[in-house]
């Protein structure tokens, strides 16, 4: 079991950036107590302090295939969002579901196609009729 370091530097960096950002806004402000930057400054300081308090703890490294799967899955979702509203909903959704079904493990092309068409039409009709949301 390999260990990979946990991303505490992320918290510290966000905290430090927040402090810088707040100081930039606070510059020239007279009433710092009610300045919009005050809360960000407090949170930035809190994040920096907390990033030092957490105990080091590793996580089990997942096989590279798992990350590939997640990457492809998110990529397909991003593409779907990119074309959402520009291409016919049922058509776009059928293609999207077909690809997603394949990624999640359903390998039969015919099954995937039937599943994708049924779910796309169902969601289209349910949203338009029951929920009154135009897709």
């Amino acid at each position, binding site marked *: 079991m390999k260990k990979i370091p946990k991303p505490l530097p992320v918290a510290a960096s966000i905290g430090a950036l927040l402090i810088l950002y707040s100081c930039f806004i606070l510059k020239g402000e007279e009433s710092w107590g009610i300045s*919009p930057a005050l809360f960000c400054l407090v949170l930035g300081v809190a994040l920096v302090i907390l990033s030092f308090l957490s105990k080091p703890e590793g996580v089990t490294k997942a096989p590279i295939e798992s990350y590939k799967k997640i990457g492809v899955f*998110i990529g397909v979702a991003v593409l779907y969002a990119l074309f959402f509203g520009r291409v016919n909903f049922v058509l776009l959704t059928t293609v999207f579901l077909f690809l*997603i079904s394949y990624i999640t493990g359903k390998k039969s092309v015919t099954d995937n196609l039937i*599943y994708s068409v049924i*779910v796309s039409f169902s*969601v289209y009709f349910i949203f338009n009729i029951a929920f009154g949301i135009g897709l």
Partner: protein
Amino acid sequence: MVDTAFVLLVILGAFLGLVVGTLPGLSVTMATAILVSLTYTWPMEHAIALIMGVYVVGVFSGAVSAVLINIPGAPSSVATVLDGYPLALKGKASLALHTATIYSFIGTVVGFLALWLFAKPISAIAVRFSVLDYLLLGVLGLLSATAVGNGDRAKGLISAVLGLVLSCVGIDGIFGTQRLTFDANFLKGGISTVAALIGLFGLSEVLWQLITPQKKATVVESDSGKIPLKEILSHFKLGISSSIIGTVVGALPGAGGPVAALIAYSRAKSSSKNVKTPFGEGALEGVVASESANNACVGGALIPMLTLGIPGDAVTTVVLSVFILHGVRPGPFMIKENPELFSAIIVGGFIAAVAVLVLGLLLNKPLSGLLKINRTSLLPAITLLCIVGAYSVQNSVYDIWLMIAFGAVGFMMKRHRYPVAPLVLGLVLGQMCDLNLRRTITIWSAQGGFLGLVLQRPVTIILFILIIASVYFILKKPKKVGD
């Protein structure tokens, strides 16, 4: 207020809750987060009805897979596994499921009775809260959400602070200036809570399931025996005391069903002297304690949400967003100004409790069939619902992007063992904390003394003591409740 549609929607929600609760990997939070976005065009009572059905029955039905396949269908059924599955192996699956059903019903009723009895008095006290009290309340909510959680508490706090940071994005509530928007138009409106909720609880769960191999579980068939009511009801006293524990723990922000169930279980274990079967080997008392506590938690978690605007657990954070979407801000004035909504929640809860009883007793045997469904076949449809759900709130493609981003963040947090619930709580409570911090400083500088601001109000002193207690629990080494 309570019409046929209301009752039917609770029942529909109950069926949905039965499915998501029974199938491991599908969570009640995920289902309610998606439903919020789908029902926002409905009358609020109807949206509440559907969500109450899913919430109450979803918490109960986690027991089905806990008993029949040794995997809790919902996190709150984690303690039910300990004795429920051994009972099933002994050929008493039906007894375990009937017990879970009856005590889930009792727990729900106790929780909602507490909500009905205590919400109004708490609201009456809370209307007198000062801005400092509200600030302390927000801080207390975030601290207690971290204090009761397992694992690294610093990570819980980091998660809460990140939620607060995200709540700052958009237009400032006092001066109207932009914060953390970096001149991007899409950030000016702030972070959509619903899109964030769907991403963090819905899509992240789908991504998690993608890398989690599905265990081939052997389903123990439920026997169709008669309901031994006398034997089940002989644990009534334990059921009531566990329900009270569940209600109290549920009222602590961030605690939720799993903590309530484990505390009630360990209390039952230490206090039950003459048990027929030892705990862990099929003691009916274990199922009674766990199931009554986790369902009582539902009513308990709604108390701080409705009276103070502080959600008790992840699902009540979602319920809170239902109110906000419909233009109602839960808090001390909510019950007085919107009594019909308060009644809708109470009535919805009681109808859902009856649904637990009816569905649990009637569908005992067919439920085992539900467990044979391959959950990966549901993932594409859930992903689609997450996307369409995020879009439908504001008809905005930007919300889809936001939801996908939060899905990835939620997945990474889960992977690195950062709790997601404090982040959501921070996002919800951020504005309240920010505004009241700055208002307190204004009053403080006008009055010229912070100590005077604190010492003249007993409520403020109590809140300070509670905050100190929370900090003490956070600093104290976490102890496993089940041990």
